[in-house]
């Protein structure tokens, strides 16, 4: 176990702690029983998020199992290192969860702004892309590892952006169809 691994694990643990704390404190996640709060998900959205979470978790478990048995081949054939592989698996499972939520109308809270979310995702993805481009080299001895992780996140952000736009277009068409029916 080298020093880099310990630092990496410490950063990961700190990030998880911050994430869990932010979820616990987030007004979006706390359903108030008495007062009227518009910054919350309704019951159907919470139910769909549960299903999405299950799908994302199953995806992560399946990918991790595949990686457990075929890990060395990922480096040989896909040129992916250990860190990049784990980041890819986690990103894919998170994407499954988020995309399921988007397409089952469980991503935005009751009064979330669609365009603000699009802008936020674009900024974050652009930030990851720029930080990825700042690296001197993308591979180490022909293996894509630590430096490729920002690109994985940037691509994930791009996929999210496209999914949001696609869902918006689908919603517009459905609304127009319903208006015509009425």
């Amino acid at each position, binding site marked *: 176990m080298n020093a880099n691994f310990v630092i990496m694990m410490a950063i990961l643990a700190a990030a998880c702690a911050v994430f869990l704390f932010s979820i616990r404190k987030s007004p979006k996640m706390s359903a108030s029983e008495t007062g*009227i709060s*518009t910054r919350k998900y*309704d*019951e*159907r*959205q919470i139910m769909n998020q549960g299903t999405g979470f299950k799908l994302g978790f199953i995806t992560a478990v399946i990918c991790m199992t595949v990686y457990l048995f075929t890990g060395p081949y990922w480096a040989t054939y896909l040129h992916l290192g250990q860190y990049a592989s784990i980041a890819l698996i986690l990103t894919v499972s998170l994407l499954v969860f988020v995309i399921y939520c988007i397409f089952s*109308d469980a991503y*935005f*809270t*009751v009064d979330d702004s669609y365009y603000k979310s699009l802008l936020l995702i674009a900024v974050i993805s652009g930030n990851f892309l720029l930080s990825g481009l700042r690296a001197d080299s993308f591979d180490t001895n022909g293996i894509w590892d630590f430096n490729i992780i920002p690109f994985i996140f940037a691509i994930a952000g791009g996929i999210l952006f496209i999914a949001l736009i696609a869902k918006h277009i689908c919603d517009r068409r459905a609304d127009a169809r*319903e208006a015509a029916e009425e």
Partner: protein
Amino acid sequence: MPAKQRKNRRCNMKNLKLKAARAALDMSQQDLANAVEVSRQTINAIEKGDYNPTLKLCVAICKALNKTLDEIFW
């Protein structure tokens, strides 16, 4: 008609009473959603029969539309 298709058709029965009650008050889906504090898509899903609301939401909808549970959801 195959059994599975019949079952799906039964489950996805549209709630036309809700739609009619909403239209009678000249409310849009968004207006009703704002009144009961859910998303517009949830009201849409209830009207299309894609989602069965909880009793709490049913009561909130009935109060917003000045109807009884029997009139809308039975």
